Structure formats: structure tokens, C-alpha cells
């Protein structure tokens, strides 16, 4: 594939607002998880973005007001992202930049609040509940396109926890086919009852802060995050070098125990990038902290890379940010390259003795030229992305 440059990036999660704060948290091994204090829910730990409590949308965009779009807006106005897009808008034209964003639950928290506010007599939803601009999946892309004053193609990609990872692939195909010249990719997912209670129903919420790859790991901690990248054919900085996607064809919520889908996605990413396994310096795992995912991913790692390539999960810092984990961890990958850093898993007491991959549990410094980032989702959807420095650097 022709590499695509990430000419502007921004990220917000429980470990900080912006690329610099995120890098500092990774370097100092300062995680962002805390006991759940969201609504009336108290199960397990969460990765909550405190800055959301005071962030408001501009009055012209008030119809989009919901937790998810506020989180997106916070990210748009971090790291100078909106300004960088404005420059690109002048260069390409507002109709030549696509907005392709991932989310698994969009503004469904607004739907939850509307259901609670129903009038018992009629069971109707409140009149001021703006389903289209909040709860609906597409509202995220509609909002970001409006906030950035773009007029190009727009879509939301919703492939569960692989949503925002998949936006890189969909955007690459749109740019390669000439449907647009550049694209804003990434996405947002925010805390809500749907996911906190839904994952609890599957017994997948850890009572403690999640500890991916630990022998005693017992589930996920849910977090919220938003992140965006501007993808262009030319530019400096980190670049998307390869991508792979696959389906498990196995089960709606359990990964394939033999990791066939994950292996296929990882190998496809190497193939589109024209790279061999030994050209990858570090793999940022999907690494959710569930028994099944991490065991499956260890099998995939060893199958594709052997037992020597360093890998780790950063979900011990941020929690599992669901549809946003793809962009969050893509940008972590970019920070790893920039800062020559491989962040070891947080919260691990003892690695799972059955694992054969080289899982890092402490930070390591060194040359990091190319990073693979994995994202897997319900429905058996797998995406692997490879990031590196763009040609000429």
C-alpha cells in the first residue's frame, strides 16, 4: 500500500488530554483507572475523563449535546487538531476531506436518560430528546463534520471494539480510489450504562483495575476516549504502513480459541505493508484483560512473530475504551515510535505462565521503527494496523 501520513493527531483518555500528557503518563507508568463512580454503578474500575464534567459544546452545535460528542469536541480542540484540519480544508477544499469515524455506542447515554425520563402515562420519550443528533450512531460523524466545517463524504464505522481501528482501512480505500483526498479518522466512545451493565452481564468486568496478561487477570475495566488523525498522502510524522482485517466466523462474543481470525488480520497487515515479521519492533496488543482474549492473542503473537518480538497492552492505563481503543492505541503506537518507548503492561503481578510471547511488564527504551496495533471486537471482527515513520524521514 501507499503509506498514509498522520499529519495531525489528538487524543483524550483517562490518562490525559493530548499527545504530550499521554506520553508522559506512559513514560511514568501513571495509570488512569479508578473505582467506578459513574451514575449509580459501582462495579469494578473505570477510565473516566474528568475534563468532560466542565466541557460544553459551542452554542451553534448545541443540538449535538451528549457525553460522546462532548468527548469528541474536547479532542478536536486539543493538540491544535481543529486548526490543522482548517489548514487542510483550504488546501484540498472542504468537500475533498472525508470524515470516517468509529464508535460502538455513540450517544446512547442520552437514550438511557430519555428512557428514564419517560412519562409513565404515555411511555413517550421526552420531546427535547434529539435522537438523531445524540443517540444515533451517525451523530458522531455528523457532529465532527459540522464542528470542522467540512462538506465531504461522512460515515460512522461501527464494528464494536474494532470500530475506530477499522476507520483507517475504510479511509485508505476511499483515498486510494479517489473518492476523497484526505480523511479525518478515529472516533469516540464514552461511559454509559449500556456497556458498563452489558459487560457485567457477561461477567467480564474485573473487580480490580484490569491487568492484561496477568496470571490472575479476570476481566476488563471500561474506559472512555476520543482520538482523531488527519490522513494525507503526503506529509511528515508517523504513517500508516499496513493494514489487515478479518472475521473469526466463530462466535458473537467469544474469540476463536485458535486465534485464526487474529492471525489472518496480523498477517494481512504485514502483507499490505510489504513487511516481514522481524521488521516490527513492538506490538500493542488488544490485550483487554479477559481470560479468553489475552490467551488467544498470545497464540496469535507466537504464530506470527515467534517468541522474541516485544508486546504489551496499554489497557491497564486507560481501560478498554471499546470502539475508541483503535485510535487511542494507534496514537500510543505513534508515541512509542516518537519517544523510543515500549510501555510494559500495568498492574501485572505475575505473567500468565502459559504465555509464550515476550510480554513486557516494565517500560523499555530503544529504537521503535514500526509498531503493530491490534483491535478485536464482538461479532468476531479483527483489525491490525502497522505504523512507522513516513518515507523520507
Amino acid at each position, binding site marked *: 500500500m501507499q503509506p498514509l501520513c498522520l499529519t495531525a493527531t489528538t487524543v483524550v483518555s483517562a490518562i490525559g488530554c493530548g499527545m504530550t500528557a499521554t506520553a508522559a503518563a506512559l513514560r511514568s507508568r501513571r495509570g488512569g483507572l479508578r473505582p467506578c463512580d459513574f451514575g449509580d454503578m459501582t462495579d469494578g474500575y473505570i477510565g473516566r475523563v474528568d475534563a468532560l464534567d466542565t466541557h460544553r459544546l459551542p452554542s451553534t452545535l448545541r443540538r449535538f449535546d451528549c457525553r460522546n460528542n462532548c468527548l469528541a469536541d474536547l479532542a478536536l480542540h486539543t493538540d491544535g487538531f481543529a486548526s490543522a484540519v482548517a489548514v487542510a480544508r483550504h488546501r484540498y477544499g472542504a*468537500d475533498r476531506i472525508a470524515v470516517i469515524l468509529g464508535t460502538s455506542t455513540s450517544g446512547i447515554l442520552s437514550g438511557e436518560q430519555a428512557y428514564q425520563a419517560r412519562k409513565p402515562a404515555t411511555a413517550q420519550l421526552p420531546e427535547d430528546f434529539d435522537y438523531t443528533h445524540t443517540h444515533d450512531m451517525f451523530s458522531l460523524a455528523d457532529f465532527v463534520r459540522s464542528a470542522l466545517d467540512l462538506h465531504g*463524504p461522512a460515515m460512522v464505522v461501527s464494528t464494536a471494539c474494532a470500530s475506530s481501528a477499522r476507520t483507517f482501512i475504510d479511509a485508505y480505500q476511499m483515498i486510494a480510489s479517489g473518492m*476523497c483526498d484526505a480523511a479525518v479518522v478515529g472516533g469516540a466512545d464514552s461511559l454509559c450504562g449500556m456497556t458498563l451493565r452489558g459487560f457485567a452481564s457477561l461477567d467480564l468486568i474485573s473487580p480490580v483495575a484490569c491487568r492484561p496478561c496477568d496470571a490472575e487477570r479476570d476481566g476488563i475495566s471500561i474506559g472512555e476516549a476520543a482520538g482523531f488523525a488527519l490522513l494525507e498522502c503526503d506529509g511528515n510524522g508517523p504513517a500508516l504502513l499496513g493494514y489487515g482485517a478479518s472475521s473469526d466466523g466463530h462466535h458473537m462474543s467469544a474469540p476463536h480459541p485458535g486465534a485464526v481470525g487474529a492471525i489472518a488480520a496480523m498477517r494481512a497487515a504485514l502483507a499490505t505493508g510489504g513487511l516481514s515479521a522481524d521488521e516490527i519492533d513492538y506490538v500493542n496488543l488488544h490485550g483487554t484483560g479477559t481470560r479468553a482474549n489475552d490467551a488467544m492473542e498470545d497464540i496469535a503473537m507466537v504464530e506470527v512473530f515467534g517468541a522474541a518480538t516485544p508486546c504489551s497492552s496499554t489497557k491497564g492505563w486507560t481501560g478498554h475504551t471499546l470502539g475508541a481503543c483503535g485510535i487511542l492505541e494507534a496514537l500510543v503506537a505513534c508515541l512509542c515510535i516518537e519517544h523510543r518507548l515500549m510501555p510494559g503492561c500495568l498492574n501485572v503481578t505475575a505473567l500468565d505462565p502459559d504465555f509464550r510471547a515476550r510480554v513486557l511488564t516494565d517500560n523499555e527504551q530503544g529504537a521503535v521503527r514500526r509498531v503493530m496495533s491490534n483491535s478485536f471486537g464482538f461479532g468476531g471482527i479483527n483489525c491490525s494496523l502497522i505504523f512507522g515513520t513516513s518515507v523520507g524521514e
Partner: protein
Amino acid sequence: MTVVVAGVSVWGPGLPGWAAARSILRGAEEYVVTDVSLPPPDLLSANERRRAGLATRLALFVAQQASDMAGTRPGSIPSVFATSNGDGAVVHTILEALAAHQPVSPTQFHNSVHNAAAGYWSIATGSQQPTTCIAGHDSTAGAALLKAVAEVQAEDRPLLLCVYDVPLPPPLDAKHPTDGPFGVGLLLVPGQASGGIARIAVRYANSTSAADVLPRLPALQGLAGGNPAARLLRLLETLARGVPDTLSLSLLDGRVEVRVEPCSPAVTFSN
């Protein structure tokens, strides 16, 4: 650059499958809304058939029919699934449970993901092919067709596009009224392929007067505006009639422009 439509399918009110719909869409038969229920998805095991909601069963029906028409083994190529509402019945049940502080059903929860139909399709067909799942509210059809054609061109390989929507249950239905159910399957192959139904070229255009081009048949115009997937009715009519056409699908304040050229009559699909 063009892509070839090698297979097409439809399910909607009064349009129970392509074979029956084709003569209606050509204007040869009157459009009458009949109460025909969706055939059970024979691809799914009994267990999964019980778990899959109407949206998933609709998507699987049109996905399979389009694959069959093109002679493509179901699940053997990548796919794009697109829906505005997803499975509204599942989302509604979970929202009710949350509001009442009742437990959420784990099966309902994993069925609530927007890519549920794509997941069941890959399970049913044993497919490891890539899939992406698009949401675009009332612009879903235009966004999905643009994305699907882009993927066929960029990857130079066939792709299954499946666009479907079913009505939301009350009280959500008041917030996004949706007729239906309505589903469309299109099997798209790279432009150099021989045979097929029609060649299509797709591009995005910024427009101050974005509007969907309506179906020719007045009886179908209401349905076309009443379900996000039914916005493809004009394209379906054009494919059924085997005529050239230029149509557009709205995408927010822009539009997706679709130029259609029928393939030569000798190889036009006949049924």
C-alpha cells in the same frame, strides 16, 4: 472507473425477493403491498436462528440472494453491511432494562452491536473475510455505496454490499420513523469483469440541493423516503429495467452521484 453489479437482491413491502420484484420494478406488474413473511435464514443453525433478530435475518436473506445470483459462494468475499437503526428491538429491550434497573441479557447485549448482522453472516458462512459496518442515518445508502465502490476499486476484488433497515419499536419509532423492513444486496466486482447486470460509476459531489432521485413508479416513492435502505429503489428500478441512468443519493449536505450503464443485452441477467 466503474464497477460491475454482478448480483442484486431486495426484500421489502410488496417486493419479496428479486425474482418477484423485478417485474414490478420494470413496471410490468402492479405494485401491491402483500403480507409475506421473510423466509427463515437456512444458513443459520437452529440455535443462532433463535437468537438472530429481524434486522439480522433480513440482512442475511439479501446477502445470500445477491451472492447466489452472482454465483459467489456466500462468505467467500469481503463485505460492507450498512444500517441506520441496527437492531432497534434489542436496543429498546436493553434501554428498558437499564431504566428499570433490571439485569441486561448477555445475548441481547452482544446482539446490540451495530455489526451483529455481519457477525452472524460470517458465523453462518464460516467466513474469515474482512467486513465493515456503516451507519449514516438517512444518508446510510449513499455513504455505504460510496464506501463499497471505493473498496472494490482500491482492493481490486469483489465485495458484497448489504444495506438494510427495520422499523424501530415504540417509543423510539417516534424519533426516527421507519417503514419496512427493507433490505438490498449488491454483489460488486471490479470493472474489468465480463458479464453482469450493469456498470456503475460513483462519486461524491458537494451540492447545495442534495436530494435523492426518486423511483419512477409513483407507488414506490413513499417507501423510498420512508426507510434509509429503500433510497436504493431508484437504482433497483434502473437495474431491473436495464437502462442507462444517472441518479443521486443524499449524504448530509452532499450527494453520491451514480451513473449506471447496462451491460450488453447478451449477458444481461434474465429471470
